[in-house]
């Protein structure tokens, strides 16, 4: 049930059957893929998937999109200031994102608007359009992209909702909340007509029933939008709006819209192609790294830890029993998220040449030469000075960063490999 193609098909049916009721489409959030790689960072296949979701918001218009905590990882990559203008030109949906309580480093990331106001044409003669304000809020998530924070949604709403109220006839909060957070928001912040929320506790729960707290109607989007929610507003004689909710099951009775189905298929193909490219790159590198060749050109070549073992047996044995000797083993099970950058720390000898071109790692796993440098000249002239590491902690930190190795403790790690 659910899916873009059925949703678009229903929207067309709605237009056909209800004629003059103007409609807005909004997303309460948690609609982007949030799977991360082994280090909590972005994956190339997930990035492609989210690119297509953003495209679908433009091709089959979604008027307002709330950025929930799980969405922030992808959105943050597009808000970075140097590239934002280009991204927004390519993906106009970026300009329809809202979030009142997520904040990035102002020097490096564009801020999202806390709310937007949409005008809906009036159906009655001589009546001005209805102004509907959408405020975006989210609970905090498990992890945040660097430089971003999520402020308390209720505290933020206390400040933002009155501003939205001044500019609108109806205030809707789009949110990513547990039920009790939504209830607390409704109870403590006056002026909200309705909260439309993705339930942050909804895993496996198909549907959370609506509830009313004070004057605020709280609605939860159906899990995975298997049912489309529809909030209808009726202008009363007083000028206020009363609300009525419908949930429409998006099952196979609703046909797939052809144009949107085309996008769905293209997105699936693009994602699969990205994963296949990752797999192909990893497999070809593993094969090449089994049979390393000399670097060519000037400079020392990588000769592998087995070559070092000729003279440094004790150090070789110590290394062979360490995690460094098996660093590449972690890559094949995660082939779908593999990128060339993984080899900077899971292999030996990756570097960028003088022209800026990336040379893939020469050897599998973290071998002696990853820290001590290519050893061919030292092997030929052992008495000549080679490979002294000045600041060991700094050397380790090039790979064992807080993002990549959050549990890394230098003192205990060094004690294991000291040589």
């Amino acid at each position: 049930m659910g899916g873009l193609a059925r949703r678009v098909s229903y929207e067309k049916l709605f237009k056909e059957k209800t004629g003059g009721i103007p409609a807005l489409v909004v997303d309460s959030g948690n609609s982007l893929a949030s799977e991360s790689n082994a280090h909590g960072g972005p994956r190339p296949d997930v990035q492609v998937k989210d690119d297509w979701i953003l495209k679908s918001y433009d091709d089959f218009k979604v008027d307002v999109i709330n950025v929930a905590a799980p969405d922030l990882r992808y959105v943050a990559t597009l808000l970075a200031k140097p590239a934002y203008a280009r991204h927004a030109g390519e993906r106009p949906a970026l300009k329809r994102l809202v979030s009142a309580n997520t904040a990035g480093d102002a020097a490096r990331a564009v801020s999202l608007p806390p709310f937007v106001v949409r005008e809906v044409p009036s159906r009655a003669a001589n009546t001005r359009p209805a102004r509907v304000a959408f405020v975006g809020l989210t609970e905090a998530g498990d992890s945040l992209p660097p430089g971003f924070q999520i402020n308390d949604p209720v505290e933020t709403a206390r400040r933002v909702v009155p501003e939205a109220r001044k500019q609108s006839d109806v205030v809707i909060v789009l949110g990513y909340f547990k039920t009790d957070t939504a209830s607390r928001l409704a109870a403590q912040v006056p002026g909200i007509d309705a909260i439309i929320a993705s339930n942050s506790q909804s895993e496996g729960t198909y549907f959370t029933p609506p509830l009313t707290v004070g004057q605020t109607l709280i609605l939860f989007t159906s899990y995975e939008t298997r049912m489309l929610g529809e909030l209808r507003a009726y202008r009363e004689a007083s000028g206020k709006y009363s609300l009525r909710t419908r949930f429409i099951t998006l099952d196979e009775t609703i046909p797939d819209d052809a144009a949107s189905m085309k996008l769905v298929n293209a997105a699936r193909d693009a994602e699969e192609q990205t994963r296949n490219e990752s797999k192909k790159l990893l497999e070809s590198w593993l094969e090449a790294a089994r049979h390393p060749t000399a670097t060519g050109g000037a400079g020392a070549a990588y000769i592998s830890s087995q070559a070092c073992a000729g003279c440094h047996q004790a150090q070789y044995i110590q290394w062979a029993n360490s995690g460094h000797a098996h660093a590449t083993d972690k890559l094949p099970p995660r082939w779908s998220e593999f990128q060339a950058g993984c080899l900077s720390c899971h292999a030996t000898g990756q570097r960028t040449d003088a022209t800026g071109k990336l040379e893939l790692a020469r050897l599998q796993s973290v071998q002696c030469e990853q820290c001590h440098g290519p050893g061919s000249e030292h092997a030929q002239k052992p008495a000549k000075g080679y490979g002294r590491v000045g600041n060991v902690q700094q050397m380790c930190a090039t790979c064992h960063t807080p993002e990549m190795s959050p549990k890394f403790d230098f003192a205990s790690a060094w004690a294991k490999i000291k040589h």
Partner: protein
Amino acid sequence: MQKRNFIKRFKIAIVAFFLITAIVGLRSGRAASGEQEQPRRPLEFVPVTAPLETRAGTDDGASFAIQFIGSTHGSLEPCG
């Protein structure tokens, strides 16, 4: 005598006229207020058994509609 009959018939006609007017007026009022008094159900589920042509409902005079989605976790395809 004829004059009395005429006046009597005239009075009956007047009374009948007002009676009919009142009855017609009451019925119209009930019909009109019946439409207004029929409450809008605040919550409606359109089930899987509903035929396609009825799923969008009708134009019930709503000023506008907000169709809402979410929690799709990166999927454009049907789930479940």
